[in-house]
């Protein structure tokens, strides 16, 4: 008797829980429904939150002006918590339940990899905000996937170019054990020979690690002329601190993941003299007025600060660029997803916060190494050096 009660009760409960939110979902409603999947909570929330905010900010502006082609934009944004399973569920939800026209996000590489599997199958455009090159390549298998974040490949090229100019030929690399860090490590190792650089040490650290002095001590024992650190979040700032505390005088080069005011705040005195590639958002005031990105960056920074009372971040910029690019495509293509894809692929000379985008069938990222500038932290501020 009990079992029957259990089963019936369970079925009813499940039915209610699952179906109830789905009731009343029409797919023929007027607004353009755009989905978003970001890591809003969880360890990478410093990526997801600004991304979500930026997307919302753009949508609000568009809707205030009357929408696109007369249709308002409706955003449905889910939090994947940095978890692959959740990201997959969120993507299914957006495709099946909400019938999103296109999806922006996710914030991370692993979550992007799982989401793109189903958006490709469903032929829905996806604009990812994650860094790995494998998100948009090989191009034949990623026809429906785009990304706005600069690729780690370009960041590494930029760094090695800078090293060449400075006469640095022997480096030690210290990378984080996350998708971002591992991708960076792969690029650093594979591109070294091309620039005549020798990698003398390869150390790693964890996302939540708080003391990297053993690794730095090991690096100190090598003949490395510079340390290249690749990570995001608080740990790279601690690397900068540890370096200073250990009395190491080697120049520290960070990845573009550290190009935020938060890094300077957390690294304290260790931030002085640190060099990194950054999107132009970090130093837009120092750009010449003729730079096509200056106006965009300024607008984004000022609006974001005013609206959310928080500093702007280049991560948010990825979503900002994605949404604006998508808006442009929607204006041209309307609801036709195949046309939206085409329009996205044909984006040319699009001045965004992350760079100037030139998409093509072979390149769904549309950025080149020039999207990065080299900056140095001097007296607690980012200064353009290259």
């Amino acid at each position, binding site marked *: 008797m009990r079992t029957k009660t259990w089963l019936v009760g369970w079925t009813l409960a499940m039915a209610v829980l699952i179906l109830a939110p789905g009731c009343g979902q029409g797919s023929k409603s007027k607004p353009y429904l755009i989905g978003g999947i970001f890591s809003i*909570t969880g360890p990478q929330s410093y990526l997801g939150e600004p991304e979500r905010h930026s997307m919302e900010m753009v949508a609000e502006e568009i809707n205030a002006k009357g929408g696109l082609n007369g249709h308002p934009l409706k955003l449905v944004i889910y939090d994947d918590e940095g978890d692959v399973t959740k990201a997959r569920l969120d993507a299914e939800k957006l495709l099946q339940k909400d019938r999103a026209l296109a999806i922006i996000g996710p914030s991370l590489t692993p979550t992007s990899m799982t989401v793109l599997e189903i958006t490709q199958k469903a032929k829905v455009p996806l604009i990812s905000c994650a860094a790995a090159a494998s998100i948009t390549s090989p191009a034949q298998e990623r026809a429906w996937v785009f990304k706005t974040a600069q690729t780690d490949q370009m960041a590494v090229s930029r760094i090695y170019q800078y090293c060449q100019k400075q006469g640095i030929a022997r480096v030690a690399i210290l990378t984080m054990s996350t998708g971002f860090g591992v991708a960076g490590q792969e690029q650093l190792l594979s591109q070294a020979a091309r620039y005549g650089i020798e990698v003398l040490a390869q150390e790693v650290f*964890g996302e939540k690690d708080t003391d990297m*002095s*053993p690794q730095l001590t090991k690096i100190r024992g090598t003949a490395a002329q510079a340390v290249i650190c690749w990570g995001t979040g608080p740990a790279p700032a*601690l690397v900068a601190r540890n370096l200073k*505390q250990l009395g190491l005088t080697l120049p520290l080069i960070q990845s573009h993941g550290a190009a935020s005011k938060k890094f300077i705040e957390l690294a*304290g005195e260790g931030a002085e003299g640190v060099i990194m590639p950054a999107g132009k958002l970090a130093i837009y005031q120092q750009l010449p007025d003729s730079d096509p990105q200056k106006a965009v960056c300024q607008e984004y920074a000022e609006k974001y600060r005013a609206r959310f009372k928080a500093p702007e971040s280049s991560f948010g910029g990825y979503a900002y660029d994605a949404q604006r690019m998508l808006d442009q495509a929607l204006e041209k293509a309307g609801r036709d997803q195949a046309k939206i894809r085409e329009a996205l692929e044909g984006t040319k000379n699009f001045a965004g916060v992350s760079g100037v985008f030139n998409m093509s069938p072979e390149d769904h990222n549309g950025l080149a190494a020039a999207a990065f500038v080299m900056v140095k932290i001097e007296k607690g501020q980012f200064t353009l050096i290259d």
Partner: protein
Amino acid sequence: MPILAPLLQYFISGLTNGAIYALIALGFGIIFNTTTIINFAQGEFVMLGAMCAISIYHLAPSLPLAFLGGVIIVSLVGLAFERLALRPVVAASPLTLIIITVGAGVFLKGVAMLLWGKESYTLPPFSGEAPLHLGTATILPQNLWVLGLTLVLVLALEAFFRLTLMGKAMRACAYNLRAARLVGIAASRMVQLSFALSALLGAGAGILIAPLTLGVYDMGTMLGLKGFAAAIIGGLGSLLGGVLGGLLLGLAESFTSGLISSGYRDAVAFLLLLVVLFLRPRGLLGGRQ
């Protein structure tokens, strides 16, 4: 001596990290000594201490005030935890209690995330940032604070538990609660005290390390788990054992990272835990089961 130079630094880094684990292990040990409960929320006491101190410091930039405030608030949290989450338990099997403390840890972490967000925060070091040099190695003043305080606390606690009446009463409760009551020990009072003390210790540890490691809502999880491993390695019943376990753990991590592989550093704590559990379950200095 170029070969020895990094070794000295590994040693020092290991000791300083080990002292942090030792402080946390002490927290585990105190509650275990009085109640035979393992408080899996101990790591969150550490985190709360750091975060409260940081908030207080932002309001009133005085380190002593921040320290005191953080420690007092978290001690109260510890008392509240005992009163609300453990006292009313209907069926107090060890299993139930483990799940409750694990749940409490998750709960406190969730509350911290709501209160402080996911950002990291800094706290200024107690006596400056200028590193001190010991030969080719460096040590920070803050590390000395951690080491020094750990030593002081261990001695004080050992003296407390062995020599004072109250300390002995607390230990009696762990041996046999009923018997302790029979001889007139106010068992519930002792249990309360142990939680307050443990929370105080955890909070103090958190405030000490925040200048080194930054304060963030999820800093407690790994620290708690490693502190727990340290307590087991050293022997749960012995406070000195907990400290030894902590220092050993710190050193093992540091040398593994420097000499073998930096990627598997976190695994060292748990590998040692498994080794101890399987070969000598009572730990290095643990006397009782």
